[in-house]
C-alpha cells in the first residue's frame, strides 16, 4: 500500500457501477484487497446507493399501488391519449391492435397445442397405471420431510407435515397421492382459467429424458403446478407446487433408503418408529457439492461469475449464493438446480455482506502478501521503464493494446485458478475418497477443463508478452497432490497478476523494470508448469 495512491471517490463510484475499463477495475480490485481506507469508502458508497435503492423500491411499490390497471397496448392505451392525439394515432393503434390480435391467435394456438399434448400425456400416464413408488421427499420453507408416496387411511407413519394437507385440500389437490398424474388431471380439470405448457427436458446427450407439464392459474391458492414425468415410462418423478401466499412446495420421489438413518430399518415397515428419527433430513454430502460444481461448470459459471458454493451451518444443504447476477442468468442457474436435492440457491443472501469479490472462505479471503518482485520506487525525474516497453511494443498505442489484453487475460487466469483452488479446498483428499467412481470422474473432468484452460491462458499471456522478451521455460514438475498443486497454482497466478499490473500499469523505474520482467517470466513459466502438471494429474 505504501507505494500506491488511494483512489478518488469518483474512481470508486465508477468501480461500483462497473463504468471503468477492465484495466482500471483490475487495478482497483487489487488495491482494495490491501487498502482498508478505500474498502471502507467503497462500502459507504455502496450502503448509500443501496439505501436509495430501497427508497426507490418503496416509491415504485407506492406508485404501482396508485396506478389504474395498465391497459394492454392492443386495446386500451388509445383511450388514455389526449384527444388531440387521437386522430393522428388511430391508425397506429389500429395496426398495433391488429398485430396483437394476430399474436394472441398464435399464442392461443400454441397454448392449445400444449394443452392437447398435456392431455395426451396425462391420458397415457393414467392408462399405464404407474404409481409413484418409494417415498416422497418434500421440501418447503427450507424444511425437508419424507413420507410414503401414497398415504392410506391406516398409514400411521406419516410425518408431521404441518399445514401442507390443509393447503392441498384447499386447492382441491389430492394430498394422499400428490405426484399421481390423475391427481394433477383432477385438479387441472376443475380450473376454469388456466395456461398449460409442456416442456421436453433433455439429458446430456440431447435425448428427451422427461416431460414437464406445467399449469398456471390465477384462481385459488395453488397458482402453479409443474409435474415431471419420465419420458420412457411416464412415471412421475417430481412436482413443484406454488401456493400463494404460502410459497413453494417441492416434492420428489426418492429411493426409500435415502430416508433412513444410517443403518436403521426402513421406516415404512416400522410405523412405530419415533417421527423425529424417521424423518430426519439427510445431510448434504460431498457428492451433492460436486454436483453443484459440475452444474456450474457446465453453465460456465464456475470461474467468471461471482458465485459462491458452500455448506449451510447445519451442513444439510449446499448453498449457492451470488452477487449481482443478472435476472436472466439467475434464472438459468436456478433452473439448473431446481431438481437437485439438498441444494438451495439464494442469490439475495450473502449479497449484502462479506467480501464482495467472492473470496469468502478463509483460505482465499485475505491472501497474505506475496513476493511480487521489486517495489515501485521511481522518484521524480527518474527515467521510466514504460518508455522501454513502448519501444519494444512499437509505440504507445500498441503498448496500450498489449496492456489491455494482457491484464484482461491475467484476470481470466486468476478467475480460473481460483475456481480450481476452490475445488481443491472443497474436495480434500479424504473427502474425494468418499466419492463414487462416477463422481470422481466428474471431478477429474472439471479439474482437467480448468487446468487445460489455464495452460491455454498461460500460452496466450506468453504470446502477448513476447515483444518484451519474456521467454517462458516451463518444466516438468511433480506435485504431491492435485489439491496442493491447485493451491500453489492459485498463489502463483495471483502473484503473476500483481506483477503484470505493476509492470504494465504502474510507473516502474528503468532500474526496476528488468527485475519485474524477470520475475514475470519466472511466474509465467511456473504457471505453465503447474497447470500442465495439474492437467496431467487429471488424466
Amino acid at each position, binding site marked *: 500500500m505504501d507505494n500506491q495512491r488511494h483512489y478518488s471517490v469518483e474512481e470508486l463510484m465508477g468501480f461500483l457501477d462497473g463504468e471503468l475499463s477492465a484495466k482500471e477495475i483490475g487495478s482497483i480490485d487489487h488495491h482494495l484487497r490491501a487498502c482498508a481506507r478505500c474498502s471502507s469508502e467503497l462500502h459507504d458508497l455502496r450502503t448509500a446507493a*443501496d439505501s436509495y435503492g430501497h427508497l426507490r423500491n418503496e416509491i*415504485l411499490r407506492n*406508485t404501482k399501488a396508485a396506478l389504474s390497471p395498465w391497459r394492454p397496448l392492443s386495446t386500451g392505451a388509445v383511450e*388514455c391519449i389526449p384527444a388531440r392525439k387521437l386522430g393522428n394515432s388511430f391508425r397506429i393503434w389500429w395496426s398495433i391492435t391488429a398485430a396483437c390480435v394476430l399474436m394472441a391467435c398464435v399464442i392461443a394456438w400454441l397454448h392449445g397445442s400444449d394443452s392437447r399434448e398435456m392431455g395426451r400425456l396425462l391420458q397415457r400416464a393414467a392408462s399405464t397405471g404407474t404409481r409413484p413408488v418409494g417415498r416422497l421427499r418434500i421440501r418447503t420453507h427450507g424444511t425437508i420431510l419424507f413420507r410414503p408416496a401414497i398415504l392410506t387411511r391406516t398409514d400411521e407413519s406419516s410425518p408431521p407435515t404441518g399445514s401442507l394437507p390443509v393447503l392441498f385440500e384447499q386447492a382441491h389437490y389430492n394430498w394422499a397421492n400428490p405426484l399421481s398424474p390423475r391427481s394433477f388431471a383432477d385438479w387441472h380439470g376443475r380450473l376454469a382459467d388456466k395456461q398449460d405448457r409442456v416442456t421436453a427436458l433433455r439429458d446430456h446427450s440431447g435425448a428427451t429424458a422427461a416431460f414437464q407439464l406445467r399449469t398456471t392459474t390465477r384462481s385459488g391458492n395453488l397458482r402453479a403446478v409443474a409435474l415431471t414425468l419420465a419420458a420412457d415410462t411416464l412415471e412421475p418423478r417430481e412436482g413443484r407446487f406454488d401456493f400463494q401466499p404460502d410459497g413453494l412446495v417441492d416434492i420428489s420421489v426418492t429411493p426409500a433408503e435415502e430416508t433412513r438413518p444410517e443403518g436403521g430399518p426402513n421406516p415404512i415397515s416400522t410405523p412405530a418408529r419415533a417421527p423425529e428419527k424417521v424423518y430426519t433430513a439427510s445431510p448434504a454430502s460431498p457428492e451433492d457439492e460436486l454436483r453443484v460444481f459440475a452444474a456450474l461448470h457446465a453453465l460456465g459459471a464456475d470461474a467468471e461469475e461471482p458465485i459462491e458454493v458452500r455448506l449451510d451451518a447445519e451442513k444439510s444443504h449446499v448453498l449457492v449464493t451470488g452477487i449481482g447476477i443478472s435476472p436472466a442468468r439467475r434464472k438459468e442457474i436456478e433452473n439448473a438446480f431446481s431438481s437437485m436435492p439438498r441444494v438451495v440457491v439464494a442469490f439475495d443472501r450473502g449479497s449484502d455482506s462479506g467480501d464482495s469479490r467472492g473470496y469468502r472462505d478463509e483460505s482465499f479471503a485475505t491472501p497474505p502478501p506475496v513476493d511480487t518482485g521489486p517495489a515501485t520506487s521511481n522518484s521524480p525525474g527518474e527515467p521510466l521503464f514504460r518508455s522501454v516497453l513502448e519501444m519494444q511494443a512499437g509505440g504507445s498505442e500498441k503498448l496500450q493494446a498489449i496492456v489491455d489484453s494482457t491484464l484482461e487475460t491475467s484476470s481470466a487466469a486468476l478467475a480460473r485458478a481460483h475456481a480450481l483452488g476452490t475445488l481443491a479446498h472443497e474436495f480434500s483428499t479424504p473427502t474425494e475418497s468418499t466419492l463414487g467412481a462416477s463422481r470422481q470422474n466428474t471431478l477429474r473432468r472439471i479439474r482437467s477443463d480448468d487446468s487445460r484452460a489455464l495452460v491455454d491462458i498461460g500460452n496466450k499471456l506468453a504470446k502477448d508478452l513476447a515483444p518484451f522478451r519474456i521467454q517462458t521455460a516451463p518444466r516438468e514438475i511433480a506435485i504431491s497432490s492435485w489439491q496442493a498443486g491447485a493451491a500453489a497454482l492459485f498463489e502463483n497466478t495471483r502473484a503473476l497478476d500483481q506483477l503484470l499490473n505493476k509492470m504494465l500499469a504502474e510507473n516502474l523505474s528503468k532500474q526496476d523494470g528488468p527485475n519485474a520482467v524477470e520475475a514475470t517470466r519466472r511466474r509465467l513459466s511456473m504457471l505453465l508448469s503447474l497447470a500442465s502438471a495439474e492437467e496431467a494429474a487429471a488424466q
Partner: protein
Amino acid sequence: MTASAPDLRRKANMTEPKPKGELSTSQPGIEQVYRETRDSMAGYLVCLGLPASQAQEVTQEVFLRLHQALRNGQKIQDVRAWLFRVAHNLGLNTRARERYRNLADPDWERFVNPETNSPEDTALSRERSQLLIAALKDLSPQQRNCLFLRAEGLRYREIAEVLRIKPSTVGEFLTRAIQRLTEALHG
C-alpha cells in the same frame, strides 16, 4: 468462483429485465418492452414530480411515440435510453403545461415505509429514510435525475443520452449525489 467485474454488483434492486438494443415494428417486442418498463418509467416520472395518474398517461404516450418513430423508419439503437429520454422530456413538459411547477419535488414523506418488523425497526427505518429524503431534497435537479435514472438501471452513457450531458458529467453528478447521501446517513 470469483468476482472480477464490479459491474455485476450494481443495481441489485433491479429485478425487471431491461429492454436494450434495436427494435423494429416488425418485432412483436413492443408489448413486452411496454410490460417490462412501464412501472419503472411511471416511478421515474413520479420522482420527477408528476402525480401517479399523470405519470401513467405520459408512460403510455411514450410508447405511442416509440411505435410512431419505428413506423417512420427511425433507427433506435438503445431503446431504453430512447424511452427514458422521451419520458424525461414529456414529463417535464407535462409538469410545466399542467402547472405542476409548485410540485417540483414529489411528496417523498409518503414513501417512508411504515411496514417493518418491530417498533425499533420502524423507528430506524423511518429515521434513515427521512435522512435520505432530506439529502435528496438538497441535491441539484441534475444530480437527482442522474440518481433516479441510475436506479432504473441505466448506464452512465444512457443517462448522458437522456439528460443530454457528457458521460463524465454523469459520473461527477452521481458521485456527488451518493456522497451527499452517505454524509446524510452517517450524520
